């Protein structure tokens, strides 16, 4: 079992959950969905390219409602302590960077570099499948300032060749 888990070098995952803007009055709470590959580089480290689709909720004010933005971001994360199919729960740290493309009616489209960091837990549930829960903070660098949000996602990882 341990041998098989160690051999699980490539995984695929899908996930989703809430996205919460941080001090962005013009965005409401939204949802994010994404998919990723998980490549176990060396013991203890994994590399995760990922693609994500975020839709903020509407921002409501006394004087009107503004539709939330849509953000598509491609990124790559490094997981520290999260490589391989876990046997039972395993906590890991992660950090990464990506390109965040933001669009909304009547706003100029923008593509900006950003980075993220977070903490997660992966729980092996057998047959090469693991439950993956993580929280991430995102910072998009934007015209000398930044836009920030938090995502809390849950999903499943499937390890090939297990």
């Amino acid at each position, binding site marked *: 079992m341990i041998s098989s888990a160690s051999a699980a070098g490539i995984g695929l995952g899908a996930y989703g959950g809430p996205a919460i803007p941080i001090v962005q009055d*013009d965005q409401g709470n939204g949802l994010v969905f994404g998919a990723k590959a998980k490549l176990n580089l060396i013991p203890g480290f994994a590399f995760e390219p990922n693609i994500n689709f975020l839709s903020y909720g509407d921002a409501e004010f006394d004087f*009107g*409602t*503004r539709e939330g933005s849509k953000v598509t971001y491609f990124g790559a994360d490094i997981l520290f302590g999260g490589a391989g199919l876990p046997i039972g729960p395993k906590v*890991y740290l992660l950090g990464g960077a990506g390109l965040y493309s933001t669009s909304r009616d*009547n706003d100029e489209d923008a593509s900006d570099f950003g980075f993220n960091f977070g903490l997660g837990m992966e729980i092996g549930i057998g047959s090469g499948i693991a439950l993956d829960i993580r929280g991430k903070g995102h910072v998009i660098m934007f015209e000398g300032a930044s836009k920030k949000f938090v995502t809390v996602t849950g999903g499943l990882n499937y390890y090939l060749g297990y």
Partner: protein
Amino acid sequence: MKKVSAKLIPFFGLVVVTIFAGCLVSGTFVIDLDIDNTDISTESEFQYFIVDLTDNEDWEDHRDKIEFIDNIGFQLWVENNGASNAGVEFYITRDFSVDIDNAQEVRDNAIRVLSGLTLVSDDNYIDWPTSLGLVENLDSLKSIVLTENDEDTDDGFVIYALTTTLPFEITIDSATVIVTVTASE
């Protein structure tokens, strides 16, 4: 490996808290300034109102930390007193030195920042998202509004409402100017 991970978690947590503590004093803010009918003046060919954001508490809270303006919109209640539809345009200037007496002088001395608005012959309401789609020359508009932030200049800028044809038969009952800014320490 697990021991190293465990030791790093508090450090990582500290980094997270530090970055997000910064968020508490930086972000995107939506500021609204109501203009009621007592602040709106009427000339024979146009109406105008003066916007002084320095009167606004939210603007004052953020004015020294504004990095950029995200967008500017309006909420409007307008009556078209004519018998047919009327096209309306907004112009802006912060030059108080020029006497403006008619619509042509508005066009010659101010910058058009909103067009394409058609009012039916009745009461009209233009909401914020709709106005965002009608705003033009946004960079000039942002520049003028940000100049408002310069303590060496007079406070306020003027917004003129014209119709694309005369006679001028509209009445702005009230307006709200809505400015979205990104500000940081």
